[in-house]
């Protein structure tokens, strides 16, 4: 099991580091690329947890679609020369950082002290089987949510076209 443990620490550190990179890097394009890296790392973590299909979906949807959109937008509007990275205000900045730190400690502490789920991880199953059960669950228990999401996506598609159309024609104005 040492390989698994090594993998966890590797992936956790990669994910966390790139996550921190998102916040700290001042060029938003690097931020986006860092986030893409985080997504890939999270996907790998899903894989270590046996959720292979979800890992793939994570890659396709987040890394392959959402982040591409972000990068595309950033490149499209060429935001390299950036305004100041962080918002002004020393006091509020200090408070915010303190909150973040406290929250990190608190959540971690809460988990460490309270989580008592003693269930053993399921025995190794064929990944394909998990995906199949996922499909069955999706189409029985969660079928309503599934259809609702279909409608949501339709609405978003229509709305986004409306947004993109509004005031500005097809070309970015300068």
């Amino acid at each position, binding site marked *: 099991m040492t390989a698994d443990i090594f993998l966890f620490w590797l992936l956790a550190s990669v994910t966390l580091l790139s996550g921190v990179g998102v916040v700290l890097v001042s060029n938003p394009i690097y931020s986006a690329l860092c986030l893409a890296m985080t997504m890939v790392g999270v996907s790998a973590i899903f894989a270590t947890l046996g959720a292979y299909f979800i890992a793939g979906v994570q890659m396709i949807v987040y890394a392959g679609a959402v982040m591409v959109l972000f990068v595309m937008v950033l490149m499209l509007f060429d935001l390299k020369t950036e305004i100041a990275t962080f918002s002004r205000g020393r006091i509020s900045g200090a408070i915010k950082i303190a*909150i973040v730190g406290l929250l990190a400690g608190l959540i971690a502490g809460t988990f460490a002290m309270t989580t008592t789920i003693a269930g053993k991880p399921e025995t190794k199953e064929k990944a394909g089987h998990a995906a199949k059960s996922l499909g069955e669950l999706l189409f029985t228990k969660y079928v309503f949510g599934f259809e609702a999401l279909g409608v949501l996506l339709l609405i978003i598609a229509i709305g986004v076209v409306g947004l993109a159309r509004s005031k500005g024609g097809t070309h970015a104005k300068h």
Partner: protein
Amino acid sequence: MNHSLLMSILILSPFVGFLINGLRYKKHNYLVAGTIATSAVFISFISAVFLVVDLVGLPPDSRRIAVTFFEWIRVANLSVDAGFVVDQISAIMILIITGVGSLIHLFSVGYMHHDKGVAKYFAYLNLFIFNMLLLVLGDNLLVMFVGWEGVGLCSYLLIGFWFTDETKAAAGMKAFVTNRVGDAAFLLGMFILFLTFGTLNFSELNALVPAAAETSWLGAITLGTLFLFVGATGKSAQIPLYIWLPDAMAGPTPVSALIHAATMVTAGVYMIVRLNPMFMMAPNTMMIIAIIGAATAVMAATIGMTQWDIKKVLAYSTVSQLGYMFLACGVGAFGAAMFHLMTHAFFKALMFLGSGSVIHAMHEEQDIRKMGALKKYLPITHFTFLLGWLAIIGIPPFSGFFSKDEILWMSFHSPLGHPVLWAAGALGATLTAFYMTRLMCLTFWGASRVPKGTHPHESPITMTIPLVVLGVLSVIGGWIGIPHIVSDFLGHLPNVWEEWLHPMIKEVPNMGPADASLEWALIATSVGLASVSALVAYHMYVRKPGSASRVADAMGPAYKIVYNKYFIDEAYFAAIINPLVKGSRALWYYVDVNFIDKCTYWAADVAKGGGALIRSLQNGNMQQYAMYIGIGLVVVLSILLMR
């Protein structure tokens, strides 16, 4: 027939008429609206007749048809039902209300046909009938009070019916405000009675009262009845709250006939009669009622002698006659009060309608100085008016004679009465004879003073039919209550009235045996005085026109005082209204503007400042919002983790 069904038809029929006319008033012409309203009241009248017939069929001791529709209020030990009861007293009232009411509705069809708001008028009239029925049928004070307020509202609406005329609108408001004073007292009386007896139901109250003997000079019963009486003075236009009634003549004449002569103004009398066992337990109240009644009778009569407006004369006459009824109540002659109430309803409604007919003929002219010799133009009106005149001045065998005589006799004979009261009553009768004769002379007889261009004409048939019917009733209405002494003389005619009311009326204790010769003497005196007075008036206004003004001049200041209604209105203004207005203005300025408003401004400033302070938190900076969420999360998690 089913009593509750009859009762609901009786009560709701006018209400349905009100809804139909009220909700669609713009679409109706006078004929449709009048037909709807009149038939609504007529249906009510028929149900009333059915109910009364059923009531008559019951044995005398249990003549009572009670219907409870639902429990209206139940709070702690206050329990009020929407209960209605037809008994001997309310039976008379519903017959008068619906009967006279339908006649007046019929009259209105002709009288109001030129008016634009005719449907609205009929709607109000129907609403009034509905409320009046609530008032008389309610089996407890609260339901009665609902009707009481309802008729007040309708009175206000109808007095101010031509609200575009400011004085008429003001008259409506005056009536309403004056009534409010009485209503407040009525409420206080109700509270006191409820506190004392724990119920508002009439029969329960009347049953409980005899057991609770009054111990002190001004106990709960005296106080309660006194307050109720003040309420009655408001509604029934007695001293000191009569001032609204003459002004109420601003409304359409049929309204005056219905509301301000026949029905609503008698509500106070009705209320006292309904609670007569309780009033009997409060001799102090009784005394006050008798004195007020007698004083009102005389004072209103004196004012009536000097008025030139045909309706004003009738209005003061009404006040005066109501004084008689209160006098009767005050001396314990409740039967006589009810009797006079009924006969008065007939002849005064007749006279008001007659005056309406005259006004109609004279094209809205109300000043009797511009009339005279209308006999030939308005034969039917004149004849019926003549019947009313004979009835009111108490000439036998017209109805007024019997009821008025009964009152005068009782005020002399009853242990609660006093010769002075009788003397006041007799004086009032004399004055009544004078001013009514004056009215007849100036309106119908003597020389014509009708301005050129005015062509008086007899009224249409819808207006004359009610006059005729009421005329007949004015003549024969008194025959059901012929006094013992007269009936003995005529050969033992039954006194239907007395028998009918007997179970409901508490006997005056210590009533001595009637002295026949004394009674005859008193009757002769009052009739004689009235006749003489009438003759004098005839002489003064027909034979020698002008002598009246000489007399008035001779009287000088006294005449002036009377002509100006004893300056009562002015006195009220000086004593109550102006100080009230000034005090209110001072309160408004010093308390409201300078204190309360400043407090509220201060509160507003605080809120505004606080808002500005808090608004700085809501500055649109999304990250700050997120920070607040974060702070909240930290706090919540800390609390969770501490536990």
